[in-house]
């Protein structure tokens, strides 16, 4: 049941009524999940975390690691790799705090491992917060990345 819930675009297991009302449990194939629109349109980190994970409460610890440059050569292409050895990984999300839309990208996991790598656009120097939800709890690793030439295409 939990797998079905988080594969339908919401990781807030137990809030079916809220999710259904917010249109997050739209009927889709079980193994396809809708694009998390609310998270992508959030203007704050807290809103994005609540929209995607159903919580913004973070556990203490260093279970998540980030491989990313301290300084971005090109703000349009910043490589980020998020890794964790935690068991039961449900999802990974990358939040670029100073970007106009902080929720940048995420990975919903249903059999894959605790790794997600991608390249993001950064408008300016910003902390990049990488969240991992595993075993029902939320974990975080953060790194500030300096940007000299912003990459939002403006």
């Amino acid at each position, binding site marked *: 049941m939990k797998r079905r819930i988080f594969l339908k675009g919401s990781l807030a297991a137990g809030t079916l009524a809220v999710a259904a009302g917010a249109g997050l449990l739209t009927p889709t194939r079980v193994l396809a999940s809708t694009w998390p629109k609310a998270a992508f349109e959030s203007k704050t980190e807290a809103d994005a975390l609540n929209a995607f994970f159903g919580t913004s409460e973070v556990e203490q610890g260093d279970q998540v690691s980030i491989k990313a440059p301290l300084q971005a050569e090109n703000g349009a292409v910043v490589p980020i790799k998020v890794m964790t050895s935690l068991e039961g990984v449900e999802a990974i999300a990358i939040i670029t705090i100073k970007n106009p839309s902080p929720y*940048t990208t995420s*990975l919903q996991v249903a*059999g*894959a491992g605790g*790794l997600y790598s*991608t390249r993001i656009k950064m408008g300016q120097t910003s902390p990049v917060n990488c969240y991992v939800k595993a075993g029902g709890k939320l974990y975080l690793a953060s790194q500030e990345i300096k940007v000299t030439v912003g990459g939002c295409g*403006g």
Partner: protein
Amino acid sequence: MASTKMKIKKSKGGGYEVMVLAKHPMETGLRKDKKTGEKVPAHFIQTMEFALNGETVAQANLGAGVSKNPLIGISIPSAKSGDTVTVSWVDNKGESDSAEKAVK
């Protein structure tokens, strides 16, 4: 359409890492066309589904904040030689593409 390429690499601790390169402009909708002065409409991949032998193992959610020509990597610890990995993506205009590769 060979606009999506996949590379599968054996991981140190077992399993495999899958890297996908999808050719896509990932337009934010904010950039102005230099010739016309008009804003280029938002056009970006939204979801990218990874499957192992036909079963979904992960879905990446992308937005316009992901770089042009997304390079996306995940790991599949349970993958083994002879398995098939498929990736398929859909963008905000409903365009899509996919790629398939055997695990060696």
